[in-house]
């Protein structure tokens, strides 16, 4: 009997040739099970074959290497041989609670999902009262993974307390931050975890309808999730009488359309109502008046996907992990100019330096690392000599940075920080929803002024002007788009002043060689 080979169908793996490798194995007579990715993206396409009950890895593969492996029956001494995957340092160090099944199961094989324990959290929730669910999530200390870190339990409690039967759960799968792909990986590798999380949140607040707002830049995730929703309905795990518990919950999948600001929760609600993605003024908060004016929970994909684990193992077990007020695990995503890029799920509190150096292996180019941008396009740039900071909400805030959605983007010495600052303003100008002046006008002026600085025009006066603009944007913007754009801009100016000096273009890094 031919061995089974496991190979990711994750979009990142496919982007570097996983489909052709899968075909090569199929041509050689193997059964190929397409899974999510383990997150070791630099090793993709990474194939695994079962040997003595363990899954043994080979990667990164080309079609030629795959044919060779097939012909030689996967020799241990092959150049791509990695040994048992779970024993790799990258895997061993992790606490994969949310990503436990990602890379292990076929995302659309419900039997495999159930056999791997996928339904336990949902079943535990269905056996508990809504109040108990809210209590458990509150005890866990779970905070929103979309960026703001707001306690998930408080939101649930607020929405649960609202009268009326029409309430909504919205999964924010807009994942617009550069350097982040955790939501995508989970939706492509273990969509059931998100679906279960939404049902649990629905039961907690008394909502029977959910929406997933999934960005159009993720066609693979859209396909997988749509198929998963259908499979769950057909199986009786989603819909009118979930697992014969009497619980009712329906989920609709909605695509985004290329707007970054639609990841902001109120703009997302507008978009879900079929409108322009303009930010709403607060109050009211969505938990009181959200989608179609009804009480609505908006949570990031990973926040919702954390709920099944918490329900299965208890709030205290989750709270026991992590660092101080940042409980549990975080999906860290290593991106940009990094030798070993990918996703790691670890307890909060690990240092940025360990992530980038030990796990990431430094820069891809081999040139010295100069800057790291944390938390997406609205996050700060951190200097290479300041990486010794614990990765949790409070420690980062104390260092003038933020975790955001867990994206870590590495730059080598060739980066021009004045260009990055200009880009931050350009991005804000491009993606601003236009509702408030500080952001709409401020970003355009900020970009113009930074362009002048880069040309060496009135540098010191123009730097003062940028600082004033940033203060205004930070203080007076309606949402964090305009409010946080000053973060990357001012961190670049403050921590990399040499790039803003006149004739910065002729910096040493560029003239040497």
């Amino acid at each position, binding site marked *: 009997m031919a061995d089974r080979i496991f190979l990711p169908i994750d*979009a990142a793996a496919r982007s570097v040739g996983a489909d052709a490798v899968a075909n090569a194995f199929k041509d050689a007579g193997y059964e190929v099970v397409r899974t999510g990715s383990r997150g070791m993206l630099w090793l993709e396409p990474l194939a695994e074959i079962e040997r003595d009950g363990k899954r043994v890895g080979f990667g990164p593969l080309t079609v030629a290497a795959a044919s060779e492996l097939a012909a030689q029956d996967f020799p241990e001494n092959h150049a791509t041989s990695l040994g048992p995957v779970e024993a790799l340092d990258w895997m061993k160090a992790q606490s994969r609670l949310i990503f436990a099944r990602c890379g292990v199961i076929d995302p659309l094989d419900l039997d495999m999902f159930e056999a791997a324990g996928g339904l336990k959290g949902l079943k535990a929730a269905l056996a508990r009262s809504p109040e108990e669910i809210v209590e458990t999530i509150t005890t866990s200390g779970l905070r929103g993974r979309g960026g703001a870190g707001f306690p998930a339990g408080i939101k649930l409690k607020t929405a649960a307390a609202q009268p009326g039967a029409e309430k909504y759960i919205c999964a924010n799968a807009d994942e617009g931050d550069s350097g982040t792909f955790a939501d995508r990986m989970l939706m492509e590798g273990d969509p059931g975890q998100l679906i279960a999380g939404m049902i649990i949140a629905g039961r907690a607040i008394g909502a029977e309808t959910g929406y997933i707002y999934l960005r159009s830049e993720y066609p693979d995730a859209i396909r997988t999730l749509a198929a998963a929703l259908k499979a769950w309905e057909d199986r009786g795990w989603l819909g009118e009488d979930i697992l014969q518990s009497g619980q009712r919950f329906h989920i609709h999948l909605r695509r985004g359309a290329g707007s970054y600001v639609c990841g902001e929760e109120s703009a997302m609600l507008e978009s879900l109502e079929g409108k322009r993605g303009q930010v709403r003024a607060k109050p009211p908060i969505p938990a009181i008046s959200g989608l179609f004016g009804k009480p609505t929970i908006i949570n990031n994909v990973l926040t919702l996907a954390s709920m099944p684990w918490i329900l299965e193992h208890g709030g205290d077990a989750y709270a026991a992990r992590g660092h101080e007020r940042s409980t549990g695990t975080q999906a860290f995503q290593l991106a940009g*100019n990094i030798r070993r890029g990918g996703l790691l799920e670890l307890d909060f509190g690990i240092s940025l330096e360990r992530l980038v150096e030990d796990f990431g292996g430094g820069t891809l180019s081999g040139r010295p690392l100069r800057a790291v941008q944390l938390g997406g396009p609205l996050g700060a740039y951190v200097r290479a000599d300041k990486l010794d900071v614990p990765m949790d909400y409070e420690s980062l805030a104390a260092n003038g940075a933020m975790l955001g959605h867990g994206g870590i983007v590495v730059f080598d010495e060739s980066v021009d920080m004045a260009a990055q600052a200009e880009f931050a303003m350009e991005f804000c100008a491009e993606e601003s929803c236009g509702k408030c002046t500080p952001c709409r006008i401020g970003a355009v002026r900020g970009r113009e002024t930074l362009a002048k600085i880069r040309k060496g025009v009135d540098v010191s006066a123009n730097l003062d002007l940028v600082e004033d603009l940033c203060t205004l944007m930070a203080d007076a913007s309606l949402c964090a788009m305009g409010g946080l754009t000053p973060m990357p801009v001012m961190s670049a100016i403050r921590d990399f002043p040499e790039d803003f000096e006149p004739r910065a273009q002729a910096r040493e890094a560029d003239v040497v060689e």
Partner: protein
Amino acid sequence: MSHHTDGIAEICAHYKDEPSALIEILHDVQARFGHVGDEAARDIAARLNITRADVQGVRSFYSDFTTAPASPARIKLCRAEACQAVGSEALAAALTARGIETEIVYCLGNCALGPAAMVQGRLIGRADADTLEDARAEALNG
């Protein structure tokens, strides 16, 4: 009713003429006709019982929708930070030098394997000018 109008009616009916589904409807129209023209905007407005200005306002807000036919073989090239860090700007310039225009997008979720691009919904990692030119040619011929 024109062939075009029929197609729009069919798409709107699939969403039960529900105004909240406007963005889904625009996606389907864009996919079917290659763009969302003024005639389509008028027909959608009529079906959903909203104003033409409403439809046009939404169409113009979202970068996925175009008013003129867009080439199905166009290259979406990520210009966001993680891809900048591995040379997406230079790649864009190299493509321009070959006479190939790219559409700017911000993040395709492939930030550990940049520069990232997308052609006809297919994600491409560690992209260079040659692979993208090939992908474009394939899309044009396929």
